[in-house]
């Protein structure tokens, strides 16, 4: 029974963009141990809420902002594992999506750089490394964020201590915190103005089964303050290679007016002007595609708890052939504002997210169908709606539907005469 009254909220993240949004809706702040309807929690807290020991049982009028096992997508090693599993499954089914080219690379599903877990896959990694001994690899701790603990290597000796056989390794840690992933470093990123950048896109998932996700139209590019060079002498200079604002903020040239950020529309204008419209459209189609594929990959293993929604921060790098690569997905994208524009963007992001996740700003009922009307989307647009996609016939002219992702056209371009490419919109 839904009680009339204001939504009671709790948060353990003291950020004004959140709190201002709650207050403007007239919601009431309560403490964690009281009756609450909406809890915007950190990833540490979500672990407790759904942990077996503390056994929280959420009621129908309670919503939280994370899925219980979001780490299947947001931990670097699990994301890669799930995507690899997904690809193998599609291959087994004989799905056209899993088609490979003459070099054995997936044509449509090769969007994560070659990655290995350390120390588990150390030997496999060495094999791959030796095929291209001049390549650079990037080491990332599985459980950290904001660029912490990341470093680049181009010699096996630099990661000796992750070798499983190493007798000198005092590194016999069972703790998942010390696990690392090592990925082929994209040393040919698309440069603009000579600078490297990555894309931060926000994606809201309201349900995994059926998959319903929204893309925030106002993503941004994060530029490094220093000119990019693949030169080995600069491998240690994190200002050249890592685009995390947390790192760039401490560089000499960091600017507090624009914060080294560009809107996605600037990127689009630049690419259309310098590269042409078709390749730009294709790039954005592919970006939408890889986001949806990553979500489909984890959908089967996600705990699709009806009390949950999640707003992810997707990090994508574009290489100089205009191919997008999925670097990682963040469960708790930063809500800190580095500039005035940033503050406005994040405020609106939360606003639009709440409008979708908590309909009408009223006390929620988790039994609702999670299908918000188009008017409340704000700056979000539907990225993929599995339910809607399945109710369409495959031969319906999808181009005529407004507000759909342009992934349709991209998919058709890929659909090289193969029958029934299961609805990518």
């Amino acid at each position: 029974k839904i009680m009339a009254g204001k939504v009671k909220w709790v948060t353990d993240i003291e950020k004004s963009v959140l709190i201002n949004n709650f207050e403007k809706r007239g919601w009431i702040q309560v403490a964690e141990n009281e009756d609450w309807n909406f809890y915007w929690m950190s990833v540490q807290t979500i672990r407790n809420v759904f942990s077996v020991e503390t056994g929280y049982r959420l009621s129908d009028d309670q919503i939280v902002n994370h899925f219980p096992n979001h780490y299947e997508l947001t931990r670097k090693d699990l994301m890669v594992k799930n995507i690899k599993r997904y690809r193998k499954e599609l291959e087994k089914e004989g799905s056209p999506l899993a088609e490979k080219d003459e070099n054995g690379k997936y044509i449509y599903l090769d969007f994560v750089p070659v990655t290995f877990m350390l120390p588990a896959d150390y030997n496999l990694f060495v094999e791959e490394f030796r095929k291209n001994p001049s390549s650079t690899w990037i080491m990332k701790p599985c459980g950290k964020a904001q660029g912490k603990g990341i470093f680049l290597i181009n010699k096996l000796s630099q990661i000796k201590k992750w070798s499983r056989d190493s007798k000198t390794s005092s590194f016999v840690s069972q703790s998942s915190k010390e696990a690392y992933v090592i990925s082929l470093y994209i040393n040919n990123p698309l440069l603009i103005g000579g600078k490297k950048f990555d894309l931060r896109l926000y994606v809201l998932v309201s349900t995994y089964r059926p998959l319903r996700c929204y893309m925030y139209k106002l993503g941004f590019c994060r530029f490094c303050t220093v000119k990019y060079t693949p030169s080995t002498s600069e491998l240690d200079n994190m200002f050249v290679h890592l685009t995390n604002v947390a790192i760039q903020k401490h560089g000499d040239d960091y600017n507090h007016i624009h914060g080294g950020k560009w809107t996605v529309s600037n990127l689009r204008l630049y690419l259309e002007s310098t590269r042409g419209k078709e390749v730009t459209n294709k790039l954005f189609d592919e970006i939408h595609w890889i986001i949806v594929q990553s979500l489909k990959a984890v959908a089967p293993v996600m705990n699709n708890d009806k009390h949950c929604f999640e707003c992810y921060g997707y990090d994508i790098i574009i290489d100089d052939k205009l191919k997008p690569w999925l670097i990682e997905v963040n469960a708790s994208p930063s809500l800190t504002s580095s500039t005035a524009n940033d503050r406005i963007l994040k405020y609106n992001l939360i606003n639009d997210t709440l409008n979708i996740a908590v309909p009408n700003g009223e006390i929620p009922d988790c039994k609702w169908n999670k299908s918000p009307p188009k008017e409340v989307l704000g700056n979000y647009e539907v990225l993929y709606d599995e339910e809607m996609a399945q109710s369409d016939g495959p031969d319906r002219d999808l181009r005529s539907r407004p507000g759909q992702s342009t992934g349709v056209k991209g998919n058709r371009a890929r659909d090289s005469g193969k029958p029934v490419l299961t609805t990518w919109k």
Partner: protein
Amino acid sequence: VLAEQDSAAAQQYVRQGCPTALRADLWALILNISNQPEDILYYEQLKSNVIQHDLLVDSLIYKDVKLTASNDDYYFVFEDYLYQVLLCFSRDTSVLEHFTYSSATPPKSYIRGKLGMEEYAVFYPPNGVIPFHGFSMYVAPLCFLYHEPSKLYQIFREMYVRFFFRLHSISSHPSGIVSLCLLFETLLQTHLPQLFYHLREIGAQPLRISFKWMVRAFSGYLATDQLLLLWDRILGYNSLEILAVLAAAVFAFRAVNLMEVTSLAAAEAVLADLSTLKVMPLLQIFLFATVT
């Protein structure tokens, strides 16, 4: 038009605005920039001049870029390209040719102790153009179109010697800044006499606000996509008059709010942010709408 490589046709075409993907090529066609090997060589030569010796104006360029483009949401990315282009530009003596049709004269510098003796005079800087605050904003929008430095350079140089130089030199030319100021004031006074009178009464002379827009050809004030649509017309009609018309159109658009202000500061505030304006509808309303 592009297939035919017809420069005159391109000029006609861009009057309606360019599709983003074709703009770079169309402008290059209109400006006659083909980036031949000799052009690239010339640019490389300029770059080596930059490396070989410093000029005092280099400091002005650094300062200008740091103060303007580096703080701009759209252009900060291209900081390095701006330095490159402007440092080369200062050393490019071919720019001196434009003084034959400009009413300005390049500044001269004399060898020490030989002041006034023409045999010991050189033009300074080598291109005869002393950069000023905001100068780099002439180059910045072009960085969205040309990512190859030598082409970017040539396009900018041509834009400068055809158009931009008129915005900072005194002349009677219809596209010169003096004529633009006059045009702006005339348009405003003719079509919005009440507003014009009101602003003058409160000490907020309209030209004081619009001057900076016109001198910079609106670069840094409009969103880049809108700015490029505006510059399409400059190229298409081979005239800068549209800058004065747009300035008046902006005042017309915000007339209601402007009528209510009572100080220069308040008027400036109403007109501080042009980043959301759409150039073409604004111009069309101002030029063609029958209701005043």
